[in-house]
């Protein structure tokens, strides 16, 4: 059950956009699709939505092949857009009807989601009069208004202020709790780490890393030490052959090769009667892993 991509490839004129990728989302959750610009994320999304045809491989939803005419997924594209001179209500009604709702169902859904996303006052207005963030929330409504089982969100938080980001995060959490499958593509690694259970990183159309995010991170050794002291400790760090990545006001981020060296540093600082306010050995963040995998 759920969404399954097997050995999917797509070539455009002279360019292999997606090269033999496979992944599966088999339970309600948020799946992270990551990659640099031009890595093949949008092509992958367009194939799984049935907008463009794949060259090879198989895409199934609940065991059935995904075909354009049968797809009724929700989609928030990265390229935001609304009809600028058309009233929001008319636009939402239009998309809801195209997604199979009748006027009464659509009207109820518009009112419900307008309240949840706090955009009720904008519904009678034309789109060009709304701020970018509010336009984005309206477009989010077009993605979920027909209560789809699978929702694809491409950069859902870009351009949103912290208040609206929080609103959207709560909606996503609720959607997963209600059994929805969500594919999220984002460059904001913090958001991916917050929501996603499984991830796939693409680079030049190829999968460079995929799996359970927690397991991926556990597979990495600690590589960073964060220390805060009441005096300069550069001398002690260099004595142990370690590099300082960042320092400011006696707060240091130090690259480490092993946890033993970090403990040795702490021991040395204590022996020198240097007051240590913070000492934290850290594993690589998703951002670090991403850069390691796709960085040139």
């Amino acid at each position, binding site marked *: 059950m759920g969404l399954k991509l097997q050995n999917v490839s797509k070539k455009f004129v002279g360019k292999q956009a997606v090269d033999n990728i496979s992944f599966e989302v088999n339970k309600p959750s948020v799946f992270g699709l990551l990659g640099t610009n031009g890595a093949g994320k949008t092509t992958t999304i367009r194939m799984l939505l049935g*907008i463009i045809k794949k060259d090879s491989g198989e895409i199934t939803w609940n065991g059935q092949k995904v075909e*354009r005419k049968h797809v009724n997924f929700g989609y928030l*594209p990265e*390229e935001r*857009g609304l*009809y600028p001179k058309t009233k929001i209500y*008319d636009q939402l009604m*239009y998309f809801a009807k195209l997604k199979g709702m009748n006027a009464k169902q659509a009207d109820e859904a518009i009112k419900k989601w307008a309240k949840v996303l706090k955009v009720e006052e904008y519904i009678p207005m034309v789109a060009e009069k709304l701020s970018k963030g509010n336009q984005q929330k309206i*477009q989010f409504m077009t993605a979920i208004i027909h209560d789809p089982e699978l929702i694809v969100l491409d950069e859902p938080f870009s351009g949103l202020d912290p208040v609206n980001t929080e609103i959207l995060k709560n909606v996503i959490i609720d959607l997963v709790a209600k059994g929805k499958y969500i594919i999220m593509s984002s460059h904001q690694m913090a958001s991916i780490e917050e929501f996603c259970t499984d991830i796939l990183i693409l680079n030049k159309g190829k999968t460079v890393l995929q799996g359970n995010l927690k397991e991926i991170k556990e597979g990495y050794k600690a590589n960073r030490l964060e220390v805060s002291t009441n005096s300069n400790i550069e001398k002690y760090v260099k004595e142990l052959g370690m590099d300082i990545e960042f320092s400011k006001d006696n707060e240091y981020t130090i690259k480490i090769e092993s946890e033993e060296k970090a403990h040795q540093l702490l021991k040395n600082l204590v022996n020198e009667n240097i007051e240590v306010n913070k000492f934290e050995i850290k594993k690589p963040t998703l951002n670090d892993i991403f850069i390691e995998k796709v960085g040139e």
Partner: protein
Amino acid sequence: MRDLKTVIGFTIKDMAKRKSFIVSTIILLAIIIIGINIPNIIKAFTGDSDGDTNNKLLVVDSSNLFEGSLDSLNSMNLGYEVSITNENLSFDDIKTKIDNGEIDEAIIIENGENNSHKIRYIVKDMAMISGMPEELMAGINSIYTNLQISKLGLTQEELQSLNPNFEYSIEQTEEQQVSGNILVIMLLSIVLFYAIYFCAYQVSSSITTEKTSKIMETLVTSTSPTTIVLGKTIGIGIVGLIQVCVFVGVALITAKFCLDPELLSSVLDMSKITPYLGIMTIIYFILGYFAYSLLYALTGSTVSKPEDIQSANAPVAILALIGFYLSYFTMMNPNSDLNAFAAIFPLSSPFCMPFRMMMGIATPAQLVASIVVLIITILIIAKVAIKIYSNAILNYGTKMTIKDMVKIYRDKK
């Protein structure tokens, strides 16, 4: 089908609500009503209530060459209010009278040498006049001839035999006889061309707007590209057809109620505008609109920026102009083979065939061939346009070239 209805409904509502559409419709209606009423407006300004605009003509016969017989010019209904004088008036005297508004124009008859006579026709401004009106010259010649004949002492019978009463008529060797006012038909052809052209152009504009506003991505995940193209084309076509019907209806009603019936019948034979002709004109409007709007859908989908739309649409505009002028210029010679070709050639047939029908020279075989060729052309354009549209609408960036389109067409087969 349900999606198609939804797209058509949204397109109609969206277009009809646009301020630019409402304002341009109102302005065009005002132009139509004012344009048809121009004769009445001129009358109102000139204060001429019965339309009789006889010019005041002064004939100066100082040598009394016509012996007072020029009075009969008034009975010839030449459109002049003629007054005769034997005073010896100079050019400057006439100029003063014209400037004062006493007369509009004048004729000075002067005796020359060797029994030759000189007639000077004096008007205020000869910019729009190529010479002395022929009717006036014929009238003066006739009066002078009669005067001289009467002096020969001929009997009444002899006199009548000198003034034959010929009955003139015109016939043609071509079997098909053209009826109707060609100039009016050509004018209607221009109206039909612009109606088709501008409605079709709206499709391109609408598609580019959807691309530039980035709504396309959401739209293509909601319904198929074929539904979008057809829904948009049909929706805009319905609005355009209603708009054209309103324009024509208002024009006919205004002409019927505001124009002098004699003037109206002289330019447009209303008996030629039959329901059959009306239906066929609407059919040609629809077919012509579909052919050009689908071409515009194709070009509209290849651009992402509003500034590129003009250059992308240029090839279609050129095709439309070729089609129109092929029809327009051959209409001056409607029995020519080229006009018959223009009535069947799909680019020009929508602008040509309705008027061949109006002129009564379209044969049933030509009509069937014209419609069949046009429908086949539309189906071919639709196939190519929808295919390229489906793949081009998600391309953002620079305007696509014809080479790119061919590549895409081949690549997606």
